[in-house]
């Protein structure tokens, strides 16, 4: 079935190992949470189409391995992303502190105007919380991103988080950036792509090419 969507957005989930990225994604794409999840090795995506203010938006959401050892490998995939969710675990201080490093990673490898959002996951585990809501909020203000606490387990704020991120991307895209064809350099590649999308009858053909340049021997 051809182009049953108006836009295609590529999103990326990053954050330390075990913070719940895969669970968050499964909750959103399959609406399920169970105990048979396995740790992520490498990278893969899931798709879900959502309705946003009358537009059909297809979300292609990439889930990455969080372990340090995989970090440099997965950064090759940052470049095509239009939105990135930085996930930490509210019961794990280290994962929160590492958000800074993940942000630095984004700044180095993702396109400059990528939409970012910080997520404090596992907020169902209030009794084991070590990172207060305030600190999460504070950090997000510091970096100028949106912030939400979620629980993949209880399906709390998961939809909201993805919808918010998608809405921000859509807003940014529609705010006149349709005219700025080929601003090139400073704008990320998604803008060019979405420009084409906007021109093409609002039908976005999935031509956002991801780059991965590790065919180095």
């Amino acid at each position: 079935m051809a182009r049953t969507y108006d836009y295609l957005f590529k999103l990326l989930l990053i954050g330390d190992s075990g913070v719940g990225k895969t669970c968050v994604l499964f909750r959103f794409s399959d609406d399920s949470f169970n105990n048979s999840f396995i740790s992520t090795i490498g990278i893969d995506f899931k798709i879900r189409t959502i309705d946003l203010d009358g537009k059909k938006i297809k979300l292609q959401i990439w889930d990455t391995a969080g372990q340090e050892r995989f970090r440099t490998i997965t950064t090759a995939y940052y470049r095509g992303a239009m939105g990135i969710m930085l996930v930490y675990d509210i019961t794990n201080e280290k994962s929160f502190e590492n958000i800074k490093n993940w942000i630095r990673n984004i700044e180095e490898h993702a396109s400059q105007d990528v939409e970012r959002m910080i997520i404090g996951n596992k907020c169902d585990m209030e009794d084991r919380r070590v990172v207060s809501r305030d600190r999460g909020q504070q950090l997000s203000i510091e970096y100028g991103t949106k912030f939400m606490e979620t629980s993949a387990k209880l399906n709390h704020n998961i939809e909201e988080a993805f919808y918010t991120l998608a809405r921000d991307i859509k807003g940014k895209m529609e705010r006149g950036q349709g005219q700025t064809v080929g601003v090139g350099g400073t704008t990320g590649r998604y803008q060019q792509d979405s420009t084409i999308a906007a021109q093409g009858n609002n039908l976005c053909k999935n031509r956002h090419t991801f780059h991965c340049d590790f065919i180095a021997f």
Partner: protein
Amino acid sequence: MSVIRRKIALMGCYCVGKSSITERFVSGNFSNDYETTIEDLQTKSYKYDGKDFLLRIMDTAGHQQYSLFPRSCAFDVDGYILVYSIDDRHSFEIVQIIYDKIRDHMGDVKFPVVLVGNKIDLQSESRAVTKEEGLQLARSWEAVFLEVSAKDNIGKSKNTVKHVFEKALQEIEMSRGNVQRRSNELRVQTGMPSISAPNSPRRKRSYPVAGKWVNSCNDVNQDVDGGDEVCENPIKAAQWRALSEKRNNINQFLELHREEGLHFYLDELRHFATTRGGLIDDDFRAEIWPILAERMVTCEDEDCTDATPSCTVSRSTSGSDLQTSDFESAMSEMTNEETTPIADPEESGVDAENERLEKLQEHKEWRQVDMDVQRTLARFPPNISEQHRTTLQEDLTPLIVQILSTNPGFNYYQGFHDVLLTFLLVLGKEKALKVGLDITRSGSFRAYLLKSLEDSVLKELNLVYVILSRADPELEEVMRSVNLGGLFALSWPLTWFSHSLHNYHQIVRCFDVFLASHPLFPIYVTAAVVMYRRAAVLSVEQEMPFIHHCLNTMPHEIPVDEIIADATYLMKLMPPVLLKGRYLEEYQRNVSSSPVKTRGVSKLPRYALQLAVMGAAGAAAGYFLLTRYQI
């Protein structure tokens, strides 16, 4: 009033109109264009029987005979809509295959299902499946049957897309005992058992786990034992005879030489492990794996390891001296003297055991390892008791950390735990530790633990392209042109496929071969898997994400024996020394001189590919080939 959530999955062959039906239902639109689906979840609010429902509709990728049963359709699904196209005979056959797969997952219970023949607008021009046939099939499933057209969805008829979903919902609610059947139902038989009621056993079961173990541990044993049943099928019967013969041979061999010391017969053991069926029995494995691991085939050059000087192929039948010196040099590297490689809990007593555990818990990787071990549930058999599983999980973390602490340079990677879990399941705690120490003494695992992944596994994975450029240039070119890289297969060599194969037997079968082969053999298997998936790769959109996703998803029914036979063949044609040397250089030259097109590389005969295409018949051919190209 509260909204009731129900999840419905649409499955069927590609291009039958699953997405069109979904789209028609969700938004009322239809398009004549075709864009293949990977997977999509849509939602729609729907009023039925006076209640408010939120329908979540899982639109899936087109199914093929060998494709994976999608994880997303394996759990939490309340009912299925199986679609074929009335102008495509093949798609009718595919729905039957899918139905059987679902049943396998469910463990033979009935489930709410609607069979749909789509594209009925084409019936006067090109009908290939009669209505009667559809009805009959549905009857055999006790399912509802409808013929519709997503294109001409005529409102007043009783057979519209809306009815499809309404029937599905009705089936679901009926199976839960929430609605009564009306008398004029199309469905022939009544009385579908209430299988998806909230607390019935089926709901409790976790499907991925069950799925992984459908033909689990002992399926070969069952094959071997249950000869009567399989004899109807000549190929299966031949396979069965060959396997049971092999099993007897191994048994006799072990009886004969056990006393003497099996390590004198390394060649024979490797032969058993690499040929069809592998070591067949977990009992044999428990005896043979430790011997194979102790004398792993090592690389010809030093590249594979951290420059352990005595790195050569050991050809000798008698456990060679080289290995011993290898072992000693490895042991002398262990600066962490306090950790004894093998601790005997009985001798050391409870206190010492606790102390040992505490020591291990201080290891920098303990937390990460433990977190990964906690997420191995899907790899245990469903018939294993929870207590047994918990014990195994408790044993696994210290086991891994103990291996890691033998070398301060070891950096744990996620996936190493999958390897050790396999050893633990087959061998038990003590032997698993010994084998774990052995396999990290040289070879690939040592490199993965010591070097960066870019410098170890990704380099190896680049060789897949070199293999493909000679064995299947067209496929290689497609993969290169989209900048696919090697990440799609990252977990394959890293975990010896134990992270991505779905069935225990397939995993241990791979381990048999890997323990008895050259360290690069997993790379040849990777290439063989890619070639086996050729049709799928070429049928998805030629862009990185789609090809990545396609290859990254391992089909359930992958014929491991044939793939291993293919890989063996590939390795014979392109031995590791040449692959890493001349062939790699040639490949790099070719790629840089003609960035998109590869030329000047001679094509290989398409044995491997033919095998894959031949499917079941390939089994026999594979056996034949292997006996011909015996190592």
